[in-house]
């Protein structure tokens, strides 16, 4: 069980039937059409019926009145919002604590719970009263009026632009820097292009009348050079050999699958 009365669910315009004192003025309750704003509101109204200062209210009486009302509403099968039942349960619990022999271990004590409930009712009551006093004041547009047709005062705003010489010079520098011709430099990469290989293979082939292994056409690679250069040279030389064969300038021979690829100048041209 929580130690404070629960904060309740909604403040929808209450659409159920609350209570008022019987015309006789005793504390018999009957139902009438009016709105409650939740259980705390109902409790406050019940408390006011005790016709004493809220600081001297009897919490036990208040609990009884609330439970009586809720029971009556249930008996009449009125649809009670869950908040009211939650509050009823909490109040019944509080009442039992207040009536049973004191458990010194209990924190907070039932008296504290009761006092806190009383403080809440006082605060709500104070704000209720403050609100009605506020609303009853002479209100602008209802009771007092400002001038109906003021000429209006206009202020022509004139900008004083803030900019320093440095801003201007820097601005110019920014434009110049932004528009300076851009030169793209591509980093040298370890490749032999197809064009280079084609030129080299064709030149070497011109002097080689017999079958020569393709690998003999590869450029000499410095020891320790990037191995990717060797692979690139082999690939582009192979492509160059195919290209030369296609052009009818070279003949290719390979005895085994994955065996050495040999080439020589095309014999038709050589004769």
């Amino acid at each position, binding site marked *: 069980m929580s130690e404070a009365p629960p904060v309740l669910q909604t*403040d929808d315009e209450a659409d159920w039937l609350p209570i008022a004192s019987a015309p006789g003025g005793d504390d018999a309750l009957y139902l009438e059409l009016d709105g409650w*704003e*939740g259980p705390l509101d109902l409790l406050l109204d019940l408390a006011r019926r005790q016709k004493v200062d809220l600081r001297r209210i009897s919490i036990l009486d208040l609990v009884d009145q609330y439970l009586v009302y809720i029971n009556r509403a249930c008996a009449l099968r009125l649809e009670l919002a869950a908040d009211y039942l939650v509050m009823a349960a909490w109040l019944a619990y509080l009442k039992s604590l207040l009536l049973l022999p004191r458990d010194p271990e209990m924190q907070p004590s039932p008296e504290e719970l009761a*006092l806190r409930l009383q*403080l*809440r009712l006082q605060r709500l009551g104070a704000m209720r009263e403050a609100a009605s006093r*506020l609303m009853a004041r002479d*209100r602008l*547009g209802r009771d007092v009026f400002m001038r109906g047709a003021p000429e209006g005062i206009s202020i022509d705003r004139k900008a004083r632009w803030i900019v320093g010489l440095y801003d201007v010079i820097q601005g110019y520098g920014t434009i110049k820097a932004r528009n300076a011709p851009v030169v793209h430099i591509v980093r040298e990469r370890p490749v032999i292009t197809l064009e280079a290989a084609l030129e080299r293979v064709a030149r070497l082939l011109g002097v080689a009348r017999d079958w020569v292994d393709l690998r003999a056409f590869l450029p000499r690679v410095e020891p320790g050079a990037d191995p990717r250069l060797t692979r690139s040279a082999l690939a582009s030389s192979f492509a160059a050999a195919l290209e030369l064969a296609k052009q009818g300038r070279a003949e290719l021979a390979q005895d085994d699958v994955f065996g050495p690829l040999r080439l020589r100048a095309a014999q038709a041209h050589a004769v």
Partner: protein
Amino acid sequence: MTGAGDDLVRAVEATLFASETPLTPEEISRHLGGAMVRGALESLVAHYAGRGVELVERGGRWHFQTAPDLAHLLRREREEPRRLSRAGVEALAIIAYHEPVSRAEIEAIRGVQTARGTLDVLMEAGWVRIAGRREGPGRPTIYATTPAFLAHFGLTSRRDLPGIDELRAAGLLDPIDAAYAALTGETDE
């Protein structure tokens, strides 16, 4: 009235008459080239006292308005200002007396949840504004009243809120924990 002050009084009077909104002394002063306007305002308040129109200060801003006792003559043919729901009225009072206050604090006092639209209506009316966030868990938005609130309800400042001194003296504006501690710390009656 004669003397050098006259021109300034006339200028302040004309400025406030012409303005469509209440003005702070600083705004009037700026409008009049930096003149000190306090004295002129006081002189105008005295001059208009008891007339059909009066000069009032609301939340640091000044405006002319009709005398409240003539309300019965002027009220007819004018539509009522928007009717606030009971929830709206109570939320407004709680914000005014406790400001700045979070929605949870409003709900704790009212004992019910506050519908989303309730605070919106108060802000739309120009009476309530968001006053930032409270440092602490969840950093909730907090609400406070505006100068337009003071103007609408004819309050010079929040100190003029009906009964606020008594409420404060009775501890009714303190949080319940503080009130409880104060009560139990003292001798019981």
